[in-house]
Protein backbone atom coordinates (compact mmCIF):
# COMPACT_ATOMS: atom_id res chain seq x y z
CA UNK A 1 0.00 0.00 0.00
CA UNK A 2 2.60 2.59 0.97
CA UNK A 3 5.70 3.21 -1.09
CA UNK A 4 8.63 1.03 -0.33
CA UNK A 5 11.73 2.66 1.08
CA UNK A 6 14.16 1.35 -1.53
CA UNK A 7 13.15 3.77 -4.33
CA UNK A 8 11.05 1.52 -6.52
CA UNK A 9 7.73 3.16 -7.21
CA UNK A 10 4.89 0.69 -7.04
CA UNK A 11 3.06 0.25 -10.36
CA UNK A 12 0.10 2.35 -9.29
CA UNK A 13 2.25 5.45 -8.90
CA UNK A 14 3.93 4.85 -12.26
CA UNK A 15 0.59 4.54 -14.01
CA UNK A 16 -0.66 7.66 -12.29
CA UNK A 17 2.35 9.62 -13.43
CA UNK A 18 1.97 8.38 -16.97
CA UNK A 19 -1.69 9.29 -16.91
CA UNK A 20 -0.94 12.77 -15.74
CA UNK A 21 1.52 13.28 -18.56
CA UNK A 22 -1.02 11.90 -21.03
CA UNK A 23 -3.69 14.18 -19.61
CA UNK A 24 -1.52 17.23 -20.03
CA UNK A 25 -0.91 16.22 -23.59
CA UNK A 26 -4.59 15.68 -24.10
CA UNK A 27 -5.46 18.99 -22.47
CA UNK A 28 -3.50 20.73 -25.18
CA UNK A 29 -5.14 18.67 -27.86
CA UNK A 30 -8.49 19.36 -26.25
CA UNK A 31 -7.85 23.07 -26.36
CA UNK A 32 -6.94 22.87 -30.02
CA UNK A 33 -10.09 20.90 -30.73
CA UNK A 34 -12.21 23.46 -28.93
CA UNK A 35 -10.63 26.28 -30.90
CA UNK A 36 -11.21 24.44 -34.13
CA UNK A 37 -14.83 23.89 -33.15
CA UNK A 38 -15.32 27.54 -32.36
CA UNK A 39 -13.65 28.44 -35.62
CA UNK A 40 -15.93 26.14 -37.54
CA UNK A 41 -18.95 27.62 -35.81
CA UNK A 42 -17.84 31.09 -36.82
CA UNK A 43 -17.34 29.97 -40.39
CA UNK A 44 -20.79 28.39 -40.35
CA UNK A 45 -22.46 31.47 -39.03
CA UNK A 46 -20.59 33.77 -41.36
CA UNK A 47 -22.85 33.62 -44.43
CA UNK A 48 -25.86 34.65 -42.39
CA UNK A 49 -23.92 37.36 -40.66
CA UNK A 50 -22.50 38.58 -43.95
CA UNK A 51 -25.93 38.76 -45.53
CA UNK A 52 -27.29 40.64 -42.53
CA UNK A 53 -24.45 43.13 -42.46
CA UNK A 54 -24.81 43.76 -46.18
CA UNK A 55 -28.38 44.88 -45.71
CA UNK A 56 -27.22 47.73 -43.53
CA UNK A 57 -24.71 49.02 -46.07
CA UNK A 58 -25.42 51.59 -48.72
CA UNK A 59 -25.24 50.08 -52.20
CA UNK A 60 -21.93 51.68 -53.15
CA UNK A 61 -20.30 50.04 -50.15
CA UNK A 62 -21.80 46.72 -51.06
CA UNK A 63 -20.19 46.64 -54.46
CA UNK A 64 -16.83 47.80 -53.23
CA UNK A 65 -14.04 45.24 -53.60
CA UNK A 66 -12.67 43.81 -50.39
CA UNK A 67 -14.38 42.53 -47.31
CA UNK A 68 -15.78 45.02 -44.86
CA UNK A 69 -17.10 43.26 -41.78
CA UNK A 70 -19.01 46.24 -40.50
CA UNK A 71 -20.73 48.97 -42.49
CA UNK A 72 -18.81 52.22 -42.81
CA UNK A 73 -22.11 53.97 -43.14
CA UNK A 74 -24.83 52.17 -41.29
CA UNK A 75 -28.09 52.68 -43.14
CA UNK A 76 -31.62 51.38 -43.22
CA UNK A 77 -32.15 52.47 -46.81
CA UNK A 78 -32.56 48.94 -48.12
CA UNK A 79 -35.23 48.11 -45.58
CA UNK A 80 -37.14 51.32 -46.09
CA UNK A 81 -37.20 50.76 -49.80
CA UNK A 82 -38.37 47.21 -49.42
CA UNK A 83 -41.03 48.06 -46.90
CA UNK A 84 -42.47 50.86 -48.97
CA UNK A 85 -41.97 49.77 -52.54
CA UNK A 86 -42.79 46.09 -52.54
CA UNK A 87 -45.79 44.06 -51.68
CA UNK A 88 -44.02 42.76 -48.63
CA UNK A 89 -46.90 43.84 -46.48
CA UNK A 90 -49.21 41.53 -48.39
CA UNK A 91 -46.75 38.70 -48.20
CA UNK A 92 -46.30 39.04 -44.46
CA UNK A 93 -50.01 39.06 -43.86
CA UNK A 94 -50.57 36.12 -46.18
CA UNK A 95 -47.83 34.16 -44.48
CA UNK A 96 -49.17 35.06 -41.09
CA UNK A 97 -52.72 34.06 -41.92
CA UNK A 98 -51.81 30.80 -43.61
CA UNK A 99 -49.24 29.81 -41.01
CA UNK A 100 -51.53 30.51 -38.09
CA UNK A 101 -54.43 28.76 -39.80
CA UNK A 102 -52.38 25.69 -40.57
CA UNK A 103 -50.97 25.59 -37.05
CA UNK A 104 -54.28 25.96 -35.27
CA UNK A 105 -56.15 23.51 -37.45
CA UNK A 106 -53.43 20.88 -37.51
CA UNK A 107 -52.85 20.98 -33.76
CA UNK A 108 -56.53 20.76 -32.88
CA UNK A 109 -57.20 17.95 -35.34
CA UNK A 110 -54.11 16.07 -34.29
CA UNK A 111 -54.89 16.36 -30.58
CA UNK A 112 -58.40 15.04 -31.15
CA UNK A 113 -57.35 12.22 -33.42
CA UNK A 114 -54.34 11.35 -31.26
CA UNK A 115 -56.55 11.21 -28.17
CA UNK A 116 -59.11 9.00 -29.85
CA UNK A 117 -56.53 6.53 -31.07
CA UNK A 118 -54.71 6.55 -27.78
CA UNK A 119 -57.56 6.30 -25.30
CA UNK A 120 -60.70 5.09 -26.96
CA UNK A 121 -61.58 1.75 -28.42
CA UNK A 122 -63.69 1.73 -31.52
CA UNK A 123 -63.97 -0.34 -34.66
CA UNK A 124 -61.39 0.67 -37.19
CA UNK A 125 -58.92 1.89 -34.62
CA UNK A 126 -56.06 -0.24 -35.85
CA UNK A 127 -56.92 0.55 -39.43
CA UNK A 128 -56.75 4.28 -38.81
CA UNK A 129 -53.44 3.95 -37.04
CA UNK A 130 -51.97 2.04 -39.95
CA UNK A 131 -53.35 4.59 -42.40
CA UNK A 132 -51.71 7.37 -40.46
CA UNK A 133 -48.42 5.51 -40.48
CA UNK A 134 -48.86 4.96 -44.20
CA UNK A 135 -49.34 8.66 -44.87
CA UNK A 136 -46.20 9.32 -42.84
CA UNK A 137 -44.21 7.30 -45.34
CA UNK A 138 -45.56 9.02 -48.39
CA UNK A 139 -44.29 12.27 -49.95
CA UNK A 140 -47.56 14.17 -49.71
CA UNK A 141 -46.32 17.60 -50.65
CA UNK A 142 -43.96 16.70 -53.47
CA UNK A 143 -45.53 13.54 -54.79
CA UNK A 144 -49.05 14.91 -55.03
CA UNK A 145 -48.38 18.50 -56.02
CA UNK A 146 -49.92 18.13 -59.48
CA UNK A 147 -53.02 16.44 -58.15
CA UNK A 148 -53.41 18.94 -55.35
CA UNK A 149 -53.39 21.61 -58.00
CA UNK A 150 -56.06 19.84 -59.99
CA UNK A 151 -58.13 19.36 -56.85
CA UNK A 152 -57.82 22.93 -55.63
CA UNK A 153 -58.67 24.07 -59.10
CA UNK A 154 -61.86 22.04 -58.95
CA UNK A 155 -62.71 23.79 -55.70
CA UNK A 156 -61.90 27.14 -57.32
CA UNK A 157 -59.29 27.69 -54.65
CA UNK A 158 -56.27 28.38 -56.85
CA UNK A 159 -54.67 31.69 -55.98
CA UNK A 160 -56.55 31.90 -52.68
CA UNK A 161 -55.31 31.60 -49.13
CA UNK A 162 -57.57 28.64 -48.24
CA UNK A 163 -56.17 26.90 -51.29
CA UNK A 164 -52.70 27.38 -49.89
CA UNK A 165 -53.72 26.16 -46.46
CA UNK A 166 -55.69 23.06 -47.35
CA UNK A 167 -53.02 20.68 -48.65
CA UNK A 168 -50.85 21.46 -45.65
CA UNK A 169 -53.36 20.07 -43.20
CA UNK A 170 -52.38 16.42 -43.39
CA UNK A 171 -49.70 16.14 -40.73
CA UNK A 172 -49.38 12.53 -39.62
CA UNK A 173 -46.32 13.21 -37.50
CA UNK A 174 -48.32 15.49 -35.22
CA UNK A 175 -50.94 12.82 -34.62
CA UNK A 176 -48.28 10.22 -33.96
CA UNK A 177 -46.54 12.38 -31.40
CA UNK A 178 -49.78 13.22 -29.61
CA UNK A 179 -50.69 9.55 -29.48
CA UNK A 180 -47.29 8.74 -28.05
CA UNK A 181 -47.66 11.29 -25.29
CA UNK A 182 -51.24 10.50 -24.47
CA UNK A 183 -50.26 6.84 -24.23
CA UNK A 184 -47.72 7.72 -21.60
CA UNK A 185 -50.25 9.31 -19.26
CA UNK A 186 -50.79 6.71 -16.53
CA UNK A 187 -54.14 4.95 -16.76
CA UNK A 188 -54.96 5.85 -13.18
CA UNK A 189 -55.72 9.43 -14.16
CA UNK A 190 -58.23 8.37 -16.73
CA UNK A 191 -59.92 6.01 -14.31
CA UNK A 192 -60.01 8.51 -11.48
CA UNK A 193 -61.57 11.07 -13.79
CA UNK A 194 -64.10 8.54 -15.08
CA UNK A 195 -65.08 7.69 -11.52
CA UNK A 196 -65.37 11.42 -10.86
CA UNK A 197 -67.90 11.57 -13.65
CA UNK A 198 -65.93 13.19 -16.46
CA UNK A 199 -66.88 12.46 -20.06
CA UNK A 200 -64.30 11.99 -22.81
CA UNK A 201 -64.26 15.64 -23.88
CA UNK A 202 -63.67 16.77 -20.32
CA UNK A 203 -60.92 14.19 -20.06
CA UNK A 204 -59.24 15.51 -23.17
CA UNK A 205 -59.49 19.20 -22.39
CA UNK A 206 -59.06 19.13 -18.63
CA UNK A 207 -56.64 16.29 -18.05
CA UNK A 208 -54.79 15.04 -21.11
CA UNK A 209 -54.09 18.32 -22.89
CA UNK A 210 -53.18 20.29 -19.74
CA UNK A 211 -50.80 17.55 -18.72
CA UNK A 212 -49.09 17.88 -22.08
CA UNK A 213 -48.96 21.62 -22.74
CA UNK A 214 -45.24 21.40 -23.43
CA UNK A 215 -45.76 19.09 -26.33
CA UNK A 216 -48.61 21.16 -27.69
CA UNK A 217 -46.37 24.21 -27.63
CA UNK A 218 -43.53 22.36 -29.31
CA UNK A 219 -45.77 20.95 -32.03
CA UNK A 220 -47.45 24.30 -32.61
CA UNK A 221 -44.10 26.03 -33.00
CA UNK A 222 -42.70 23.46 -35.37
CA UNK A 223 -45.89 23.44 -37.44
CA UNK A 224 -45.80 27.22 -37.60
CA UNK A 225 -42.22 27.28 -38.77
CA UNK A 226 -42.93 24.62 -41.38
CA UNK A 227 -45.95 26.51 -42.67
CA UNK A 228 -44.07 29.80 -42.75
CA UNK A 229 -41.16 28.29 -44.69
CA UNK A 230 -43.07 26.24 -47.23
CA UNK A 231 -42.15 26.96 -50.83
CA UNK A 232 -43.26 24.36 -53.37
CA UNK A 233 -47.00 24.38 -52.86
CA UNK A 234 -47.54 28.12 -52.57
CA UNK A 235 -45.24 28.55 -55.57
CA UNK A 236 -47.48 26.31 -57.63
CA UNK A 237 -50.80 27.39 -56.23
CA UNK A 238 -50.48 31.16 -56.31
CA UNK A 239 -49.74 33.34 -59.31
CA UNK A 240 -50.46 36.90 -58.29
CA UNK A 241 -48.09 38.82 -56.10
CA UNK A 242 -50.66 39.96 -53.62
CA UNK A 243 -51.58 36.40 -52.69
CA UNK A 244 -48.07 35.10 -52.30
CA UNK A 245 -46.64 34.09 -49.01
CA UNK A 246 -43.36 35.65 -48.10
CA UNK A 247 -41.08 32.75 -48.94
CA UNK A 248 -42.34 32.75 -52.51
CA UNK A 249 -42.72 36.48 -52.72
CA UNK A 250 -39.11 37.34 -52.15
CA UNK A 251 -37.96 35.22 -55.08
CA UNK A 252 -40.38 36.58 -57.57
CA UNK A 253 -39.63 40.22 -57.58
CA UNK A 254 -35.95 40.86 -57.52
CA UNK A 255 -36.04 41.77 -61.19
CA UNK A 256 -38.07 44.82 -60.28
CA UNK A 257 -35.15 46.65 -58.76
CA UNK A 258 -32.55 45.51 -61.19
CA UNK A 259 -29.57 44.27 -59.34
CA UNK A 260 -29.66 45.60 -55.84
CA UNK A 261 -27.97 43.30 -53.45
CA UNK A 262 -28.78 45.08 -50.24
CA UNK A 263 -32.46 45.23 -51.04
CA UNK A 264 -32.69 41.62 -52.16
CA UNK A 265 -31.03 40.59 -48.95
CA UNK A 266 -33.09 42.97 -46.85
CA UNK A 267 -36.33 41.45 -48.01
CA UNK A 268 -34.87 38.00 -47.33
CA UNK A 269 -33.87 39.03 -43.82
CA UNK A 270 -37.35 40.30 -43.17
CA UNK A 271 -38.74 37.00 -44.38
CA UNK A 272 -36.48 35.09 -42.03
CA UNK A 273 -37.00 37.34 -39.04
CA UNK A 274 -40.15 35.80 -37.56
CA UNK A 275 -38.99 32.20 -37.67
CA UNK A 276 -35.51 33.12 -36.46
CA UNK A 277 -37.05 34.94 -33.52
CA UNK A 278 -39.35 32.04 -32.75
CA UNK A 279 -36.37 29.71 -32.74
CA UNK A 280 -34.21 31.92 -30.57
CA UNK A 281 -36.98 32.37 -28.03
CA UNK A 282 -38.27 28.80 -27.98
CA UNK A 283 -35.01 27.03 -28.70
CA UNK A 284 -35.65 24.07 -26.45
CA UNK A 285 -39.15 23.45 -27.70
CA UNK A 286 -38.00 23.57 -31.29
CA UNK A 287 -35.21 21.08 -30.79
CA UNK A 288 -37.49 18.85 -28.75
CA UNK A 289 -40.12 18.85 -31.50
CA UNK A 290 -37.58 18.10 -34.21
CA UNK A 291 -36.15 15.18 -32.32
CA UNK A 292 -39.61 13.83 -31.65
CA UNK A 293 -40.55 14.04 -35.30
CA UNK A 294 -37.48 11.97 -36.11
CA UNK A 295 -38.66 9.39 -33.61
CA UNK A 296 -36.26 10.21 -30.82
CA UNK A 297 -37.76 10.85 -27.42
CA UNK A 298 -36.40 13.56 -25.22
Amino acid at each position, binding site marked *: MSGTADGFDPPAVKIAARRRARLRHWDLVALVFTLITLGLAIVWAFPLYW*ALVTTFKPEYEV*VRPGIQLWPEHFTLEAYIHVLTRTKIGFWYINSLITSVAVTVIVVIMAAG*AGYAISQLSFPGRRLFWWMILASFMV*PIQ*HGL*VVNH*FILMNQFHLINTLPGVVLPQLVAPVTVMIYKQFFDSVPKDFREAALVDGANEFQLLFRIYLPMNWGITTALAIITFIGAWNIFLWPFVAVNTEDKMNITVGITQVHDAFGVSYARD*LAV*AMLAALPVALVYLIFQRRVTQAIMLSAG*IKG
Partner: protein
Amino acid sequence: MAATGVQLSRGLELIVKSRRNEIAVAYILMAPFIIVYAVIFIWPTIQMVELSFTDAPLIGEGAWVGLKNFWRLQSDRLFSTAIWNTFYFVLLSVIPSTLLGLVVALAVNRLKGWVQSVVLAAFFLPYILPVSVVFRIWSWMFDKDFGVAQHAITPFTDGQHVSVFRTLPLFMPAVAFVTIWWLLGFNVLLFIAGLRNISSEIYEAADLDGAGRWTQFRRITWPLIWPVTALVLTIQLILQLKIFDQVYLFAANVRTDATMVMVQYILKQGFQMNKGGLAAAASLVLFLVIVVLSVLQFQLLRARGER
Protein backbone atom coordinates in the same frame (compact mmCIF):
# COMPACT_ATOMS: atom_id res chain seq x y z
CA MET B 1 -67.74 31.07 -19.78
CA ALA B 2 -66.94 27.91 -17.91
CA ALA B 3 -70.67 27.37 -17.47
CA THR B 4 -71.34 27.43 -21.21
CA GLY B 5 -68.37 25.15 -21.66
CA VAL B 6 -69.95 22.73 -19.26
CA GLN B 7 -73.32 23.08 -20.96
CA LEU B 8 -71.74 22.35 -24.29
CA SER B 9 -70.02 19.26 -23.04
CA ARG B 10 -73.19 18.22 -21.23
CA GLY B 11 -75.00 18.53 -24.50
CA LEU B 12 -72.40 16.43 -26.21
CA GLU B 13 -72.63 14.10 -23.30
CA LEU B 14 -76.32 13.59 -23.89
CA ILE B 15 -75.51 12.45 -27.37
CA VAL B 16 -72.86 10.30 -25.95
CA LYS B 17 -74.59 8.72 -22.93
CA SER B 18 -72.85 5.67 -21.62
CA ARG B 19 -69.55 3.94 -22.03
CA ARG B 20 -70.72 2.12 -25.11
CA ASN B 21 -70.80 5.44 -26.93
CA GLU B 22 -67.08 5.72 -26.64
CA ILE B 23 -67.34 4.85 -30.30
CA ALA B 24 -69.41 7.90 -31.12
CA VAL B 25 -67.01 10.16 -29.26
CA ALA B 26 -64.07 8.62 -31.04
CA TYR B 27 -65.59 9.30 -34.42
CA ILE B 28 -66.49 12.85 -33.50
CA LEU B 29 -62.90 13.49 -32.43
CA MET B 30 -61.47 11.87 -35.50
CA ALA B 31 -63.91 13.21 -38.05
CA PRO B 32 -62.08 16.42 -39.04
CA PHE B 33 -58.81 14.57 -39.46
CA ILE B 34 -60.41 11.79 -41.45
CA ILE B 35 -62.17 14.21 -43.77
CA VAL B 36 -59.02 16.19 -44.48
CA TYR B 37 -57.05 12.98 -44.83
CA ALA B 38 -59.49 11.61 -47.39
CA VAL B 39 -59.66 14.83 -49.40
CA ILE B 40 -55.98 15.76 -49.35
CA PHE B 41 -54.35 12.39 -49.34
CA ILE B 42 -56.50 9.46 -50.38
CA TRP B 43 -58.42 11.09 -53.18
CA PRO B 44 -55.47 12.81 -54.90
CA THR B 45 -53.41 9.62 -54.66
CA ILE B 46 -56.12 7.62 -56.36
CA GLN B 47 -56.48 10.35 -58.93
CA MET B 48 -52.76 10.39 -59.53
CA VAL B 49 -52.64 6.67 -60.18
CA GLU B 50 -55.64 6.88 -62.46
CA LEU B 51 -54.31 9.94 -64.25
CA SER B 52 -50.99 8.28 -64.96
CA PHE B 53 -52.76 5.83 -67.23
CA THR B 54 -54.42 8.53 -69.32
CA ASP B 55 -53.25 11.17 -71.74
CA ALA B 56 -55.19 13.92 -70.00
CA PRO B 57 -53.91 17.49 -69.91
CA LEU B 58 -53.54 19.26 -66.61
CA ILE B 59 -57.15 20.34 -66.45
CA GLY B 60 -59.66 18.26 -68.27
CA GLU B 61 -60.47 14.77 -69.41
CA GLY B 62 -58.27 12.32 -71.24
CA ALA B 63 -58.42 8.89 -72.78
CA TRP B 64 -57.12 5.72 -71.25
CA VAL B 65 -53.71 4.87 -72.69
CA GLY B 66 -52.52 2.12 -70.44
CA LEU B 67 -48.79 2.09 -69.85
CA LYS B 68 -48.02 4.49 -72.67
CA ASN B 69 -46.94 7.28 -70.29
CA PHE B 70 -44.52 4.98 -68.55
CA TRP B 71 -42.96 3.95 -71.85
CA ARG B 72 -42.71 7.64 -72.68
CA LEU B 73 -40.83 8.22 -69.43
CA GLN B 74 -38.47 5.42 -70.16
CA SER B 75 -37.50 6.84 -73.53
CA ASP B 76 -37.54 10.48 -72.52
CA ARG B 77 -34.00 11.80 -72.29
CA LEU B 78 -35.14 14.59 -70.05
CA PHE B 79 -36.61 12.12 -67.56
CA SER B 80 -33.41 10.15 -67.35
CA THR B 81 -31.52 13.42 -66.95
CA ALA B 82 -33.84 14.29 -64.11
CA ILE B 83 -33.34 10.93 -62.45
CA TRP B 84 -29.62 11.09 -62.90
CA ASN B 85 -29.43 14.62 -61.52
CA THR B 86 -31.54 13.69 -58.55
CA PHE B 87 -29.36 10.75 -57.64
CA TYR B 88 -26.22 12.76 -58.31
CA PHE B 89 -27.51 15.37 -55.92
CA VAL B 90 -28.34 12.73 -53.33
CA LEU B 91 -24.83 11.35 -53.63
CA LEU B 92 -23.29 14.77 -53.18
CA SER B 93 -25.36 15.75 -50.21
CA VAL B 94 -26.52 12.79 -48.15
CA ILE B 95 -23.32 11.07 -47.14
CA PRO B 96 -21.23 14.21 -46.68
CA SER B 97 -23.88 15.91 -44.59
CA THR B 98 -24.33 12.82 -42.44
CA LEU B 99 -20.63 12.38 -41.78
CA LEU B 100 -20.06 16.06 -41.26
CA GLY B 101 -23.04 16.09 -38.92
CA LEU B 102 -21.42 13.37 -36.84
CA VAL B 103 -18.09 15.17 -36.75
CA VAL B 104 -19.67 18.44 -35.70
CA ALA B 105 -21.82 16.67 -33.12
CA LEU B 106 -18.73 15.06 -31.62
CA ALA B 107 -17.06 18.45 -31.52
CA VAL B 108 -20.06 20.27 -30.04
CA ASN B 109 -20.73 17.53 -27.53
CA ARG B 110 -17.39 18.19 -25.90
CA LEU B 111 -18.36 21.75 -25.09
CA LYS B 112 -20.32 22.70 -22.05
CA GLY B 113 -22.70 25.32 -20.82
CA TRP B 114 -23.55 28.45 -22.71
CA VAL B 115 -20.65 28.00 -25.11
CA GLN B 116 -22.26 24.79 -26.27
CA SER B 117 -25.63 26.50 -26.65
CA VAL B 118 -24.21 29.31 -28.74
CA VAL B 119 -22.18 27.00 -30.95
CA LEU B 120 -25.14 24.70 -31.43
CA ALA B 121 -27.30 27.66 -32.37
CA ALA B 122 -24.72 28.72 -34.95
CA PHE B 123 -25.02 25.35 -36.67
CA PHE B 124 -28.73 25.01 -36.22
CA LEU B 125 -30.03 28.44 -37.15
CA PRO B 126 -29.69 27.90 -40.91
CA TYR B 127 -32.13 24.99 -40.64
CA ILE B 128 -34.85 27.33 -39.46
CA LEU B 129 -34.53 29.62 -42.48
CA PRO B 130 -36.86 29.36 -45.45
CA VAL B 131 -35.23 28.01 -48.59
CA SER B 132 -35.60 31.26 -50.46
CA VAL B 133 -33.69 33.10 -47.76
CA VAL B 134 -30.92 30.51 -47.97
CA PHE B 135 -30.98 31.03 -51.73
CA ARG B 136 -30.55 34.76 -51.35
CA ILE B 137 -27.73 34.43 -48.83
CA TRP B 138 -25.70 32.11 -51.01
CA SER B 139 -26.57 33.82 -54.22
CA TRP B 140 -24.90 36.78 -52.65
CA MET B 141 -21.98 34.77 -51.29
CA PHE B 142 -21.27 33.27 -54.71
CA ASP B 143 -22.13 36.37 -56.70
CA LYS B 144 -19.93 36.57 -59.75
CA ASP B 145 -18.99 40.19 -59.36
CA PHE B 146 -19.08 40.96 -55.68
CA GLY B 147 -19.53 37.70 -53.83
CA VAL B 148 -17.22 36.91 -50.94
CA ALA B 149 -16.73 33.35 -52.14
CA GLN B 150 -14.92 34.62 -55.21
CA HIS B 151 -11.99 35.37 -52.91
CA ALA B 152 -11.70 31.64 -52.35
CA ILE B 153 -12.18 30.79 -56.01
CA THR B 154 -9.84 33.22 -57.77
CA PRO B 155 -6.62 31.55 -56.50
CA PHE B 156 -7.66 28.54 -58.59
CA THR B 157 -8.68 30.39 -61.72
CA ASP B 158 -5.91 32.92 -62.26
CA GLY B 159 -7.96 35.76 -60.87
CA GLN B 160 -10.98 35.05 -63.00
CA HIS B 161 -14.34 35.37 -61.31
CA VAL B 162 -16.62 32.42 -61.83
CA SER B 163 -20.36 32.44 -62.06
CA VAL B 164 -20.69 29.28 -60.07
CA PHE B 165 -24.28 28.50 -60.82
CA ARG B 166 -23.95 29.07 -64.50
CA THR B 167 -21.00 26.73 -64.77
CA LEU B 168 -22.60 23.40 -65.42
CA PRO B 169 -20.12 21.05 -63.71
CA LEU B 170 -20.11 23.29 -60.66
CA PHE B 171 -23.85 23.67 -60.37
CA MET B 172 -24.84 20.49 -58.52
CA PRO B 173 -21.85 20.45 -56.19
CA ALA B 174 -22.52 24.07 -55.30
CA VAL B 175 -26.21 23.44 -54.65
CA ALA B 176 -25.27 20.40 -52.58
CA PHE B 177 -22.82 22.53 -50.65
CA VAL B 178 -25.48 25.11 -49.88
CA THR B 179 -27.94 22.38 -48.93
CA ILE B 180 -25.45 20.90 -46.52
CA TRP B 181 -24.95 24.31 -44.93
CA TRP B 182 -28.68 24.66 -44.64
CA LEU B 183 -29.59 21.30 -43.16
CA LEU B 184 -26.54 20.25 -41.14
CA GLY B 185 -28.07 21.44 -37.89
CA PHE B 186 -30.76 18.79 -38.08
CA ASN B 187 -28.20 16.01 -38.33
CA VAL B 188 -26.08 17.51 -35.58
CA LEU B 189 -29.08 17.60 -33.29
CA LEU B 190 -29.93 13.97 -33.84
CA PHE B 191 -26.34 12.88 -33.41
CA ILE B 192 -25.94 14.81 -30.19
CA ALA B 193 -29.02 13.13 -28.81
CA GLY B 194 -27.52 9.78 -29.76
CA LEU B 195 -24.13 10.61 -28.28
CA ARG B 196 -25.72 11.68 -25.03
CA ASN B 197 -27.26 8.25 -24.75
CA ILE B 198 -23.84 6.65 -24.57
CA SER B 199 -22.91 6.46 -20.92
CA SER B 200 -19.67 8.21 -20.10
CA GLU B 201 -18.73 5.23 -17.98
CA ILE B 202 -18.06 3.24 -21.11
CA TYR B 203 -15.43 5.76 -22.14
CA GLU B 204 -13.93 5.76 -18.66
CA ALA B 205 -13.67 1.98 -18.78
CA ALA B 206 -12.01 2.27 -22.19
CA ASP B 207 -9.56 4.82 -20.80
CA LEU B 208 -8.60 2.40 -18.08
CA ASP B 209 -8.22 -0.34 -20.64
CA GLY B 210 -5.71 1.87 -22.40
CA ALA B 211 -7.72 2.66 -25.52
CA GLY B 212 -6.67 5.80 -27.35
CA ARG B 213 -9.01 8.43 -28.74
CA TRP B 214 -9.17 7.03 -32.24
CA THR B 215 -9.64 3.47 -30.99
CA GLN B 216 -12.41 4.67 -28.76
CA PHE B 217 -14.14 6.26 -31.70
CA ARG B 218 -13.72 3.27 -33.94
CA ARG B 219 -14.67 0.57 -31.41
CA ILE B 220 -17.14 2.35 -29.14
CA THR B 221 -18.63 5.52 -30.59
CA TRP B 222 -19.10 4.43 -34.18
CA PRO B 223 -20.85 1.10 -33.44
CA LEU B 224 -23.01 2.59 -30.71
CA ILE B 225 -24.03 5.57 -32.79
CA TRP B 226 -24.71 3.46 -35.86
CA PRO B 227 -28.50 3.34 -35.34
CA VAL B 228 -28.61 7.14 -35.37
CA THR B 229 -26.27 7.25 -38.35
CA ALA B 230 -28.54 4.89 -40.24
CA LEU B 231 -31.56 6.95 -39.25
CA VAL B 232 -29.99 10.21 -40.39
CA LEU B 233 -28.87 8.64 -43.66
CA THR B 234 -32.34 7.42 -44.49
CA ILE B 235 -34.03 10.65 -43.44
CA GLN B 236 -31.64 12.68 -45.57
CA LEU B 237 -31.98 10.24 -48.45
CA ILE B 238 -35.74 10.49 -48.52
CA LEU B 239 -35.60 14.24 -48.05
CA GLN B 240 -33.15 14.89 -50.88
CA LEU B 241 -34.92 12.66 -53.34
CA LYS B 242 -37.69 15.24 -53.22
CA ILE B 243 -35.29 18.06 -53.96
CA PHE B 244 -36.77 20.96 -55.87
CA ASP B 245 -36.66 24.33 -54.19
CA GLN B 246 -32.96 25.10 -54.19
CA VAL B 247 -32.25 23.58 -57.58
CA TYR B 248 -35.06 25.56 -59.16
CA LEU B 249 -34.08 28.80 -57.53
CA PHE B 250 -30.39 28.61 -58.35
CA ALA B 251 -31.10 27.59 -61.94
CA ALA B 252 -33.91 30.08 -62.46
CA ASN B 253 -31.93 32.45 -64.63
CA VAL B 254 -30.04 29.75 -66.42
CA ARG B 255 -32.05 28.61 -69.38
CA THR B 256 -31.12 24.98 -69.35
CA ASP B 257 -32.74 21.66 -68.68
CA ALA B 258 -29.43 20.05 -67.87
CA THR B 259 -29.83 20.58 -64.15
CA MET B 260 -33.38 19.35 -63.93
CA VAL B 261 -34.40 17.10 -61.06
CA MET B 262 -37.37 14.79 -60.69
CA VAL B 263 -39.84 17.12 -59.04
CA GLN B 264 -38.89 19.77 -61.55
CA TYR B 265 -39.61 17.36 -64.36
CA ILE B 266 -43.02 16.64 -62.90
CA LEU B 267 -43.83 20.32 -62.68
CA LYS B 268 -42.58 20.97 -66.17
CA GLN B 269 -44.68 18.21 -67.71
CA GLY B 270 -47.71 19.14 -65.69
CA PHE B 271 -47.72 22.93 -65.78
CA GLN B 272 -45.60 23.88 -68.72
CA MET B 273 -46.28 21.12 -71.22
CA ASN B 274 -49.80 20.61 -69.95
CA LYS B 275 -49.36 16.86 -69.91
CA GLY B 276 -51.29 15.85 -66.83
CA GLY B 277 -51.06 12.14 -67.47
CA LEU B 278 -47.34 12.16 -67.99
CA ALA B 279 -46.77 14.28 -64.91
CA ALA B 280 -48.87 11.86 -62.90
CA ALA B 281 -46.84 8.95 -64.19
CA ALA B 282 -43.60 10.64 -63.17
CA SER B 283 -45.13 11.45 -59.79
CA LEU B 284 -46.05 7.82 -59.36
CA VAL B 285 -42.48 6.75 -60.01
CA LEU B 286 -41.16 9.21 -57.44
CA PHE B 287 -43.90 8.17 -55.07
CA LEU B 288 -43.00 4.49 -55.23
CA VAL B 289 -39.29 5.04 -54.81
CA ILE B 290 -39.89 7.12 -51.70
CA VAL B 291 -42.47 4.79 -50.22
CA VAL B 292 -40.10 1.84 -50.47
CA LEU B 293 -37.33 3.79 -48.79
CA SER B 294 -39.68 5.11 -46.14
CA VAL B 295 -40.84 1.64 -45.25
CA LEU B 296 -37.23 0.62 -44.82
CA GLN B 297 -36.66 3.66 -42.65
CA PHE B 298 -39.66 2.81 -40.55
CA GLN B 299 -38.43 -0.72 -39.98
CA LEU B 300 -35.16 0.78 -38.89
CA LEU B 301 -36.95 3.06 -36.45
CA ARG B 302 -38.89 0.14 -35.05
CA ALA B 303 -35.76 -1.92 -34.61
CA ARG B 304 -34.24 0.98 -32.71
CA GLY B 305 -37.29 1.21 -30.53
CA GLU B 306 -36.95 -2.44 -29.63
CA ARG B 307 -33.55 -1.91 -28.11
